[in-house]
Structure formats: structure tokens, C-alpha cells
């Protein structure tokens, strides 16, 4: 098995709905985020491993109504983002259903080359999204 750094095509923009889009972020400063929601996908096939996506909440207060609308939207948005990235990666892969983790975990992008950052733009606000790739190419 050959270990390679993930070289997935970085999507500049994905429009999930007419008023919801994901766009790439190019921050000069690294991001440290706490109190997050995570959704993980297992990848099998030509690439094997996990893609972990993080919705950075950073202590934002969400009421029940916000959670009910935001969490499923985020999960589906990540399903679309990861699916589209892998679709362009070459090779043949399959993707597991998303596993939602409600356990808060802190994430930093400092010195990480296996990370891409996005902005999830909603009608009234936006959230930072961090995607981490732990993938190996199977030769």
C-alpha cells in the first residue's frame, strides 16, 4: 500500500441551495476552533481512510430551531462537498454514510497540509468549515 498526501481537487465553490454555498477560504492566519460539530466519512476503494469535516461553532449560541436547521444542512453540504471532491480524484471509491459526532473537539489548521478550509454561507450568517483528509492511495 502506497501512502500519499491527499491531492483532491479543491473546489472553489459548491452551491448547495440557491441561498447556501460553500466557498474556499485562503486565510493567512491559521484557525483554532473549539466547540465544534463534526461529520466523518469513511472512504474505500482506490483511496482508503477518512475525511473529517468540522463546523466551527466557537461558542456561538444556537437554539433548538437553529440546530434543527443547521446540523442536517451541514451534514448534507459535507456529503456533497466530499462526494464531489472524490468524484474528481480519479480512481474508484465508495463513500460511507456520514457519521455525526456531537462531541466538541478543538481543531487547529496550523502547519497542516492535509486540511482545506471553507466558508458555509447562509442567508444571514456564515460558518467556517475545516476538512481534514486522512487518506492513503491504494496501488
Amino acid at each position, binding site marked *: 500500500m502506497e501512502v500519499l498526501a491527499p491531492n483532491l481537487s479543491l473546489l472553489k465553490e*459548491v*452551491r*448547495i*441551495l440557491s441561498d447556501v454555498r460553500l466557498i474556499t477560504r485562503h486565510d493567512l492566519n491559521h484557525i483554532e476552533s473549539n466547540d465544534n460539530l463534526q461529520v466523518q466519512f469513511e472512504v474505500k476503494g482506490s483511496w482508503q481512510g477518512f475525511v473529517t469535516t468540522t463546523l466551527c461553532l466557537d461558542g456561538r449560541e444556537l437554539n433548538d430551531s437553529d440546530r434543527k436547521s443547521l446540523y*442536517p*444542512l451541514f*451534514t*448534507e453540504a459535507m*456529503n*456533497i462537498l*466530499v*462526494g*464531489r471532491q*472524490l*468524484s474528481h480524484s480519479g480512481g*474508484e*471509491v*465508495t*463513500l*460511507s*454514510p456520514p457519521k455525526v459526532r456531537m462531541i466538541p473537539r478543538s481543531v487547529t489548521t496550523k502547519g497542516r497540509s492535509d486540511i482545506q478550509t471553507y466558508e458555509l454561507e447562509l442567508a444571514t450568517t456564515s460558518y467556517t468549515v475545516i476538512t481534514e483528509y486522512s487518506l492513503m492511495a491504494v496501488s
Partner: protein
Amino acid sequence: MRGGPFYFLPLLPISFKFDILFSMKDKRADLKIVVVDDSEFSRQLIRGMLEEEGFKVSAEADGAEAALAVIKDTVPQVVITDIVMPQISGIELTEKITQNFNDIAVIVISSLAQEHIVLEAIGAGARDFLAKPIQKQQLVDSLDKVIKDLN
């Protein structure tokens, strides 16, 4: 009288097209559709798109097993199913539907749109494959084709 055909002939196809359009929209509400996706968000999204265009969703299911039970009950003309679902995938569901219900058209949707997956879906008997995020017009066109074939 030479001008007669010049004025009338171009009008005929236009009125004919309107007839088709109106009859198609009338028939949309009669189409029995089942939507299968483990994501409630995704099901609601599809339902919303379809209702905006005059379709009605007869039933929904959050997985393949539930879908098969719903299909037996409602006997739909169309099943719209996601591929990535726990336990039984949308591809396996498509195979089961096409083996057991000959007249049901299956439209497969997936965020992962690699060639091998599209071929698997078509090989399993899917009538159409749509990549997520779903474009409303693509979904409508696909369903309108089903209506045309039924008639």
C-alpha cells in the same frame, strides 16, 4: 390567399407545444413518486422542488428496507433514491425494485458521481442518474420523460 399558409403554419407548432406543456403539467400531479434518502433534509429538499413544479410525493422512506415496504403499499411509478445509505445501498435497492416491480422507473441520486457508480446504477436498472446537488430542472426533465413514456 398566398399569405394564408405563411400566417397559419408557424402558429400550429406553437399551439401544439402549449397543449403538450399544459397536459404535461396536468399529469405531473398524478405521478406517484416515492423519495428514498436517509437524510431528512435531502428528502425535504426534493419534496420542495417537486411540489414547486406541480408534482406530489406519495411517500418517503429513510432507508431501503422501509422503501420496499412503502413501494408494496403505494405501487409508485417512480422511485427517487440516494445511493449512500446505511445497510442497503441505493444500488441494491434499485436492483430489488427492477427485479420485483417491472414498471417502476428508478432515478438514482448521489454526491459521488464517478463513472463506475453511474454504470453500476444503470446496470442495476436505474433509468436516470443525477449528481448532487440536484438541479431542479434536471429532476423535472427526468420525471417529465417518465410521464411521456407512460402515455
